[in-house]
Structures are given as C-alpha cells and as structure tokens.
C-alpha cells in the first residue's frame, strides 16, 4: 500500500504539469476553436526565456553579483560545514538562487506573453473569418518557425537551469514503506494547481471569463452582444503563452533545456483530447489520470509499457466519448 501511495503521488505530480500545459491548449481552443499544435514549442520558448533571464543574463559581467548568487553573510555562515545534500544545505543553495529564479520567471512570463500576442496579431488575426482549418495549419507551420528560431537564438546546446523551489528530499513512512518525494516537485505541483485553479476561477467568475465562454459558444452572437472577439482571441493567446512559460520553466528544471522540449506538447494534446478540448475540468481529470496511469504502469509493467498504456486509455475514452470526458458535444444542424 505504501508503494501504491508513492507511485500515485509521483503520478499526480506529473499530472499537474500535464494539466498546466493542457490549460494553454484549452484556453486557445475555447476562445478561437483553433487546436494549437505549436503549444509545445511555445512552452519551449518559455523554457528558453527562463534560461535567458535566470542563467545567461545573471552570468554576464555587467550583471550585479547578487543576481547570479545572493550570498548575505548570515547565509554564508549557516552554509559552512553543511553537507550539499542535507535538507538545510539544499534550501540554502536554493535561497542563493532566489533573485535569478524570480527574475527568470518574470522575464519568461512577460516575454512569452509578448510572443503569444505577436503570434495572434500577426498570424492568427488576419485569418479571422476564414476557415478554422487554415488557422490550425498556421499553428502547424509555426512549429518549424519556432523550433528554427530557437536554434538560431540559443543554438541546440543542452543547458541546465536552477530549480524553482528547494529540491530537498522529503521522506515519511506510510504503511511501513518509506515514501520519498522531491521538495521541488511538490512545489511545482502546487504552482501548477494554483495557476490551473486560478484560470478556471477566472473563466467562471470574472467578466473576461464570461466573455471567453460566450465567444466559445458562438462568436457571431458574442460580437453582436458587444464583446470584442479579437480582444478575446488576443487574451487567450497571451494566457496560453504565459502559463506555457511557467510550464516550460518547470519542465526545464526537471529535464534540462534542449530543443526537444517542444515535443512535450504532442503528448499533452492526447490528454486534452481525452478530457475534452473545451473543458478545463475534463482536461484536469485526464491529465491527473494519465500521470497516475503512467506512474503505475512504470511501477508494475516497466517503462516499455509506460508510454503505451496511458494512451490506450486515451483512445478508449475517445472511442466511447468522441468529445472527451467533459467536452461539449457539438450538434451540426443542416
């Protein structure tokens, strides 16, 4: 039982990251009816922006020393004699990085939001009123542009970034089994859940959220009711890119930075289909289910199956519920 809990928690932590990625795809789809195939590459850009602001800029000669490593006297004193992997040592190592982590996150969110706005204004808005298929094809083309641009700007070099939270090991006993958790993963999960919850609340309870829902329901009617549909489009892309930046930063801390980060979006697309393209709650359930299923399969059947079993589940759900777990059923009237 203890082991079950261990792998279930591991799965939930992965699932929360999937949910954070999925929220961007759902936001864009809800507002614009466009499935953004390039979302993984927006996340990759977010990760590279985090790398730029948390590693490259603080490493420059002209950058203040405290930005690269904040070392007040009291912290140096506390650090002395501590083992690198001791819990307090790990917290202090992280604390020294706090300024650049904050700088990195703010920079990544702002730059990625700007990028999302730029994409919407220059590529998507001119296609408003055209077939949705054309807009989807633009997102497919965007994959090549974004991956090529990232290689040009940052090269394909693999690099590593600081953890967003202290990566202290956490151990506790459940049913006689020692459960191990990473501090950073727990914080990542909390961040992902908070952002996810915030967006859902925003869509449900705010004026902007009502406008998004109205646009999702019927763009023409929303227009005629005085809702600025182009503004909604723009907001959706900004929201997707900003949340994508946080997701990218988290992924980069777990896996390092490389152009392959962009591929992550494709596996999450399957999760979004399972949950329902226009349902935040459905996607959340799907992301958590796939995360847990992956961890359980890894535990019981090994990694060879871990990539297959969850996606078989996705297929089964889609066969029986083509609109996903909680997706809105569309009725075409002829």
């Amino acid at each position: 039982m203890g082991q079950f809990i261990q792998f279930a928690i591991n799965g939930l932590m992965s699932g929360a990251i999937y949910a954070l990625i999925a929220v961007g795809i759902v936001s864009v789809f809800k507002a614009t009816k466009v499935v953004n195939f390039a979302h993984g590459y927006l996340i990759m850009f977010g990760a590279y922006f985090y790398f730029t602001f948390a590693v490259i800029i603080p490493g420059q000669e002209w950058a203040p020393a405290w930005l690269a490593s904040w070392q007040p006297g009291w912290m140096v004193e506390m650090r002395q004699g501590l083992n690198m992997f001791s819990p307090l040592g790990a917290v202090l190592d992280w604390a020294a990085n706090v300024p650049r982590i904050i700088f990195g996150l703010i920079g990544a969110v702002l730059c990625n939001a700007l990028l999302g706005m730029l994409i919407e204004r220059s590529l998507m808005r001119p296609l408003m009123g055209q077939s949705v298929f054309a807009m989807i094809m633009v997102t497919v083309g965007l994959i090549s542009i974004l991956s090529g641009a990232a290689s040009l700007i940052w090269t394909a070099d693999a690099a590593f970034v600081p953890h967003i939270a202290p990566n202290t090991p956490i151990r506790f006993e459940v049913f006689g089994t020692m459960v191990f958790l990473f501090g950073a993963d727990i914080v990542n999960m909390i961040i992902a859940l908070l952002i996810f919850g915030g967006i859902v609340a925003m869509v449900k309870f705010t004026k902007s959220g009502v406008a998004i829902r109205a646009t999702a329901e019927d763009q023409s009617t929303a227009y005629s009711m005085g809702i600025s549909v182009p503004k909604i489009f723009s907001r959706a892309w900004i929201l997707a890119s900003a949340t994508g930046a946080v997701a990218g930063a988290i992924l980069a801390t777990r896996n390092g930075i490389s152009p392959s980060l962009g591929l992550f979006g494709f596996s999450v697309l399957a999760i979004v289909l399972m949950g329902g393209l226009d349902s935040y709650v459905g996607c959340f359930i799907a992301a958590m289910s796939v995360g847990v299923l992956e961890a359980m399969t890894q535990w019981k059947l090994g990694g060879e199956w871990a990539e297959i079993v969850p996606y078989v589940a996705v297929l089964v759900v889609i066969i029986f519920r083509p609109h996903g777990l909680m997706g809105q059923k569309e009725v075409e009237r002829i």
Partner: protein
Amino acid sequence: MTLNRRTFLATGAAATAAMGAPMILNAQPAEYVLGASLPLTGPFATAGQLVAPAFALAQKLFNDEGGIAGTPIKFVTEDSGYVPQNTLANYQRALATEGTALVGYFADSTGAMKLIAPELKGENARLMGSTSFASELANPETHPYQYLSGPTYQDQFDILMQNIKNAGGTKIAIIYSNTEFGRDPLEHGRATAERLGLEIVLEESTKAQGADIPTHVTKLAQSGAEHCILQGYVTGVWPQLIGGARQFGLPVQFHGTFWGMEKLIADRITAEAGPFLAGYQGVMPYRYFYDREDAPRYEQYAALSKVMFAGTPLENYMSTWAIQTMCGLELAMKALRDTAEAGKELTADNVAESLSGIKDWDSGGFFGGPVSMDNNKIGTGRVYEYSPETGLFTPVSDWLST
C-alpha cells in the same frame, strides 16, 4: 564522304574518345567526396552541432596530407534532424550527385545505419561509418560495408561490469532509455552479469527525454543496487537521475557509456546544480582531448583547432562526440588510402577489405596502443571518473579489451 582506311581510323578514334572521356573522367575524379548526415536539428542537435566542425578540420588536415593518393577530398554534410529516412534520402542524393566520386559516407544513428544497410549493394555500396556503437552492426557478414569506430555497446557493458566486479560490486541496476540505443546491450549485459556473478536487481526503462525522475529514483532506491549502469542517454535524463539519487542520499555508484561521458555536459551540470556528479564513472573508448601526452594526432588537431576555431569554445577543446567522428574518418581515410596505394579501385568491396585488414594501427593517441579492426569494430576502452573540482574525467582503469 568516302570512307577510306585513314578516315575510318580517325573517326573511330574520335568516337572512342568522345564516348570514353566521361568514363575516364569518372574513374579519376578531381576530388573524392565523403558525404555525411548529422543531426543539426532535432533531439540530438546538441551533439550534431558540436560534431559538425570536425568535418572542416578533417578536410583541411587530410588534404594537407595529400588527400587520397594525391587527389583531394571534400566532405559534404547535410542535416538529418535525427530522422533515419532523411539520412537515407541524403545518402541517395549524394550517390546520384557525386557518382563514383563518392567514396564514403558517415551516418548519424543506429536507425539510419540499419535502414541504409540493405541499400548498400553493387554500385550503390560505399564504406559507411557512423555515430553508432550498435552491436548488430559489428558483423562483416551481414554489414560488410559498415563499421564502428570503437567498441560496441555490448563491449562497453562488458568493460563496465568487469570493472564493477573488480571493485567488489555484487548488485547492479540497469536504467536505460526505451530506444534502440538504450536496449542494445541489455540481453548481452544479462549474460555478462551472470558470467561474472553479478546480480541485476533492477532493469528500468525510461523515456529518452522528459523521464519521470522521482518514479525511477524511487525504484532504484527500493532495488538496493550498489551500482547503476545508465545506457541510451546523451544530454538529458542521466544527470537528473544521478542528481535525484544524490538528493535522496542513495550511495549508488553510477556508470555511463560513451554518449553519457561528455565533459561539456558534466561541467554545465556542475556549474548549475552543484558537484553531485562527483565519482560518476563510465567507459570511454578514446582518450579525452586534454590528455594529449603521447597523442601526436591530437596535437595536430589542437594546432589546427587553434587556427580554425579561434575565438570559439572549440579552440581549446574537442568534444568526445567529435573525437568519435574524427576516429571514424581516420579509419575511413586509412582504408581508402591503403586501397589506393595497393593500386586498386576505390570500390566499396576493395575499401571494406582494406578496412577489415587494419591491424596494429597506431592511431596517434585515440586509443591506449595499437589497435586492430576485429569484426568491423575496435573493442577497447577504459573507465574514467569525473571530478567536479577539476572538471576532468580521469582514468580509473587500464585499457581493457574485449
């Protein structure tokens, strides 16, 4: 026009010259071409972009030495995106464009080598090296024109396991990526472990990128392994696994194979995440570039790098990935030159025969001593250990051969 004996002979000579000229020109190209596909984009672009400059260096060096029997050589490299089908298409295009001037090719993955292997027949066959150490390729009967520029992954596992055994290890874990690259030496590794009396307590497969680190580290912790061999990774996953294990205080000794042994990556991890790679060991078929004593060939590379790559990080350091490529190109050049010096045509059969005939080759420092091509591979290597303080991998074993 009346056709007398003189005009008949003159016309005949002219016609022969006209028809024969292309054949003669074809047989003696102005320069020989060696093609290459590299993953300049895609998941292994980090490695591809570090390897690419090696071709410029090799072209300069080999041509300064007289090319192949006085004929200069030219490398033509193209991007594959690490997609085997792209490499095959690149190879076919090189064949069509260069014809008989194309005398060798360098592919960028095991998948590409396997995909191209059935195409290497008759006039379409060329000598072919690659970045791969796949065990299946080290078989001259099934892959007569393809070769490895070092030991197979199976050999590397043998070397690592022997070293673990020598260090008194008994329980090992194998963590590998769920790719062909990751799975390659598994079955052989099981047999070697049994032969050496080592118990494999965990075989764990992970994603090649974006692996679920907590889950894998948990399983490693529960397995009770003393040593863990990591296989099938290049820039990612292996550092995170080691970092995770260290965070949990696992005393496991980690070991890697060639692609997980690059100093540049280890240095970057140390700079960003601290010295947790201390004690990380792995098998390396070649000397590192900074170990240039008794390595005259490396000295030549270093001198050229200073000039050709001035102002870039490549000026002072050649990655292990580029060294592997250079070794592959050196072997190809040796086979081509030996064939030309023997007065034979540079056909794939003749060059492959020369390649398999390489015995006691003094590589100029790549390996510990003279090496021979045995089953189209060089089964030697030694174990190195990384020190975050010095930023160097230093040898902890003698050169071991399989």
